């Protein structure tokens, strides 16, 4: 075969691979949306899940997923921004800083099951809490905190240097400059990064299996006191999330409509992650336009 024919053949193969990848995605997405759409109705989202019979919904699991996400972000965003500020503005160029970077890399790439085991050890057994929302959130913090630190550090470094110089030259401290000039400038990127990270947290299951648990107690949605046992806001209760529920009904459970439930739950999960991604993108460009148009 001469080289021109090989070249054409190679081009064909590359195109084929690209087509395969695209086909995989289209196939997966269609499957999820079509099968799941059948299940998605108001009842499904607002009915309590069933342990034995069919016809259960995903109300509690949906709430748990959002609530654990909220608590996790509550912990990791402030700490992550603080860490990012240190890495971008205060960290000297030395071995300790390199070590911190290594730790960030390690923590954000550990398998979720390992993080879940660590969570089990520390936040379930050692503390004696048993399965709790706060335990799950703390486990998720292990990998989300490094992500937020990195997001913040990158965002701060992309603020133009002359802004920082202008503020310092006026007789303002570095800390105040960070608070009033750099962080506001970095905010669009930080928010975008946080929303994207939310997508991963929302779909996480392995880390929550042994920390937030596989069950949810009877919840009374009219009771909003965080300290009451039946309140959904109580963080010291077990909480099965949507992702864990999908796994649970298909491997451990015995309900007859497991597949249908999982279809609906999968659709909800995937659509939520999609929404997160779109929101991040839209919000990022919106804030960017507002800040630079005038």
């Amino acid at each position: 075969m001469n080289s021109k024919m090989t070249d054409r053949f190679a081009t064909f193969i590359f195109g084929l691979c690209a087509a395969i990848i695209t086909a995989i995605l289209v196939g997966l997405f269609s499957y999820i949306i079509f099968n799941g759409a059948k299940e998605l109705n108001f009842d499904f989202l607002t009915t309590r899940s069933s342990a034995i019979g069919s016809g259960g919904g995903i109300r509690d699991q949906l709430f748990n997923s959002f609530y654990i996400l909220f608590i996790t972000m509550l912990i990791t965003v402030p700490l992550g921004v603080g860490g990012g500020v240190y890495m971008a503005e205060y960290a000297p160029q030395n071995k300790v800083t390199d070590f911190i970077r290594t730790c960030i890399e390690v923590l954000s790439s550990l398998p979720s099951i390992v993080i879940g085991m660590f969570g089990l050890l520390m936040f379930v057994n050692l503390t004696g809490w048993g399965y709790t929302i706060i335990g799950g959130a703390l486990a998720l913090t292990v990998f989300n905190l490094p992500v937020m630190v990195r997001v913040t550090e990158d965002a701060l470094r992309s603020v133009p240097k002359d802004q920082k110089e202008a503020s310092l030259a006026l007789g303002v401290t570095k800390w105040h400059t960070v608070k009033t000039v750099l962080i506001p400038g970095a905010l669009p990127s930080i928010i975008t990064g946080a929303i994207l990270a939310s997508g991963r947290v929302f779909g996480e299951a392995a880390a929550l299996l042994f920390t937030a648990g596989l069950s949810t107690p009877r919840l009374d949605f009219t009771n909003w006191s965080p300290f009451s046992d039946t309140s959904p806001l109580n963080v010291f209760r077990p909480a099965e999330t949507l992702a864990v529920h999908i796994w649970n009904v298909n491997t451990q459970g015995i309900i007859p409509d497991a597949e249908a439930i999982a279809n609906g739950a999968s659709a909800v999960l995937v659509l939520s992650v999609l929404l997160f991604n779109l929101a991040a993108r839209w919000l990022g460009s919106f804030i960017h336009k507002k800040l630079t148009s005038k």
Partner: protein
Amino acid sequence: MKQIEHTEASDRLISSKKNRQMDEVRGSILVRFCAFLMIAVSIAITIFLGIKGLQSFIVNGVSPIEFLTSINWNPTAENPQYGAFPFIFGSIAVTLLSALIAAPLGIAGAIFMTEIAPAWGRKILQPVIELLVGIPSVVYGFIGLTVLVPFIGHFKSSGSGHSVLAGTIVLSIMILPTVTSIATDAMGSLPKSLREGSYALGATRWQTIRRVLVPAALPTLMTAVVLGMARAFGEALAVQMVIGNTRNLPESIMDTAGTLTTIITLNMGHTTYGSVENNTLWSMGLVLLVVSFMFILIIRYLSSRRKI
């Protein structure tokens, strides 16, 4: 240093208790604490998982050699055996096999985006990759269970479609985005002069790709594959739903099997905390941790060998 005379100017301009900026001090301590949390958590994980993982050897007397090499896993038998090798083998098998599929496919996709159709290739494939990343791993496992397993079952002589093959296919699709996006970065950051030089010598596009571009991007391409493998090795739920979860050493890709992650997932809840069987699960977790560290070291080594 000369002693500074006390004047009105020195009050204003020399650092003293009166005019020291407390907000700066407090602020820098606060952020330093946040950053050092990273170190604290990393050390905590290593120490706690390390100690707990070693319990089965130190306290229960399980032999590490038996653990790592014996193929008999029978913790509930009269004479308990703790050979975890089937699971180690299972983890390695699905990791390597899925990399075998995802690496060529992903790198080819990357080359398509950067060399074959740079104008529109990225616009289509980039969102595709991002969407694939966004699908949670349980959903992959679930679809594998409802679509792939029955399909494979048709080709098996007996039993369900749960198999190493199912696990491999699910994992390949899951690590495909990782491999593709890093490979795309690798190919995209090659200097233009490399391509131009090759074309100027009369080479075809394929020749350029094969002889010039891929070798130049090789360290980063290998990093892409290794990162994909690291992800595959650590994946738990998706694999667990399709691989069958048996404790035998699989003899073909159609056999069921188990991996380190799947046996942990299944048995952690069914064993008593503190029992020998439970402790061996923690030892498997320790193996996962150590292998993760190894992957990171390999990736660092590859990154340091980048030619560009």
